[in-house]
């Protein structure tokens, strides 16, 4: 095998791994974007709540030895429930036009949820179950991780499910109506609070899947991941274009793939600097993100 061919395989494999892993970033990005689209607000708790959901799933694994699929399901449900609680605690009763107070309350909730998890686990890394954990598909010179493939498929399916709910059901119609024109929606008899709460639950369900998929892909879960995942989720949201679900998907995969390329060529110390530069490039040359139709409001 020539050097060039070897290098080519290495790079494509690197990009491929990153793309598969990027699916989890995409899910987190979708969650941020969904809530922003609905309320025009930033829910800083989101990534932390997603991981907390994964911890609830892990509890099912630890205490009743539930199979991996049940663990993922419990994660999603728990995170959906947390989403509802966060809505009530941080958004429902704070005046609609007070963005700062809602933002700050959600930061308080992030601290709270994170610290609860830390208390429950002493912050130790814990084994997280995965599907097809040590399966490796060999395709010629390439190896594809079975578990990541599964993660990728789950991400695609749950995104498709979300899009179906948003665009094909009455519920979705209400959600979209509120996100586009909440006064008009109210006049049409849509209960804005109820719709917002449902958006939070939906985003939460998705977050629980993202959290458990991230944990499954690493194989270990630790509260260390919360802040980096929050930052990465926000970057994906902005690169994708605020409020755009397709944008968040593309941006998640893009960040996942490129981050591996930066790592491969420049080493880990500079990797994240290039990801941030990528964001700056978007902000300067394409401030509305990939989708180009971002909702422009503060």
């Amino acid at each position, binding site marked *: 095998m020539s050097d060039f061919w070897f290098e080519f395989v290495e790079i494509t494999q690197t990009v491929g791994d990153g793309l598969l892993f990027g699916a989890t970033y995409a899910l987190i990005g979708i969650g941020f974007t969904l809530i*922003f689209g609905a309320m025009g607000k*930033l829910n800083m708790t989101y990534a932390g709540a997603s991981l907390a959901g994964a911890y609830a799933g892990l509890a099912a694994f630890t205490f009743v030895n539930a199979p991996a699929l049940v663990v993922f399901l419990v994660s999603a449900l728990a995170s959906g429930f947390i989403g509802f609680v966060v809505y009530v*605690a*941080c958004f429902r*009763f*704070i*005046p609609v036009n*007070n*963005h*700062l*107070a*809602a*933002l*700050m*309350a959600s*930061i*308080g*909730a*992030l*601290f*709270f*949820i994170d*610290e*609860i998890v830390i*208390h429950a686990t002493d912050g130790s890394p814990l084994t997280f179950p995965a599907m097809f954990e040590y399966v490796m598909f060999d395709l010629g010179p390439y190896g594809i991780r079975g578990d990541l493939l599964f993660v990728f498929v789950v991400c695609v399916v749950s995104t498709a499910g979300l899009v179906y709910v948003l665009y094909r059901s009455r519920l979705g119609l209400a959600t979209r109506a509120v996100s586009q024109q909440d006064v008009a929606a109210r006049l049409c008899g849509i209960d804005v609070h109820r719709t917002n709460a449902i958006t939070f639950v939906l985003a939460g369900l998705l977050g629980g899947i993202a959290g458990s998929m991230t944990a499954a892909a690493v194989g270990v879960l630790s509260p260390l991941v919360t*802040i980096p995942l*929050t*930052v990465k989720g*926000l*970057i994906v*949201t*902005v690169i994708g274009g*605020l409020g755009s679900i397709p944008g968040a998907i593309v941006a998640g995969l893009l960040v996942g793939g490129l981050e591996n390329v930066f790592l491969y060529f420049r080493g880990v*110390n*500079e990797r*994240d*600097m290039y990801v*941030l*530069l990528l*964001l*700056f490039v978007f*902000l*300067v040359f394409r*401030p509305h993100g990939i989708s180009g139709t*971002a909702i*422009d*409001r*503060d």
Partner: protein
Amino acid sequence: MAYYLGLVQLIGIHTLLGLSAYVLMLTGQLSLGQAGFFAIGAYSAGILTVIFELPVLPALLAGALIAAFFAFLVGFPALRVKGLMLVVATIAFSEFVRLFFFNLSWRVPRGDISVGPDSTNGFREIRYFVANGWSAFEITAFVWIFVILVMALLWWADRSRAGAVLRAVGEDELAAQSVGINLTAVKVAAMTAGGFIAGIGGALYAHTATYIDHLTFTVLLATFAIAYPILGGLSSVFGTLVAVIFIQGVLVEGLRFLGDWRNIVFGLLIIAAMNLKPSGLFDAPTARMLKRAVGLDGRG
């Protein structure tokens, strides 16, 4: 006594950090990047006193100016983005700064050891105060001279036309523009002033802590920077001070007896405060009430 003075120093430094975000918030800009300017001030001033062996005052002013310069540069592209976009852009900036210092290694020999920033190993030996025999009281006074100066200046500016202009931009950009306010100048000026104030805070922090590393300047610190003005309210500079005392004095230090439950209570209290007083602990009605209580009631 040293403990209380240390706490008072910390409150002063965090007040500067909070005020740097406060200035921006008046113009309606929310920045989660103040930790970046704080880091620039801390590293620059530390390098000046340790490597170039400058006295602390010029080092501090230079550190603040360097931070202000970067804030000025950030100000222009930041004009293009608003709201959440600006939040994320500023997070990205401050993370970039943190990663820069994470990679920075600049060591010079000093006697039998070497000093200066040492990437992950951190920047030790920023011991200007103790090495020159400053007492805890003198350090505290030094810190608070800057806090009082900055607060007085902002308070005065708030009463003058400058404050009205800042707030006008924060309330309604379009209206402000239509009465002839130059948005670019106002926003960039606010960003620069915020950078300068954060830079002073960072420079003071580096010298009171004697050690900094990149992990000091994470998003968490930036979160605190905006938490102070939001919790305190934007009605006056005193709100930020009240919030710093509330968080650093009451929640972090005062609740220490709660042991490891303290951090859980911490999050809950922030949620409660925002639900009960969404415009801040020190909002306009509270300020009026207090004034009435001490017999200073004017027109409110």
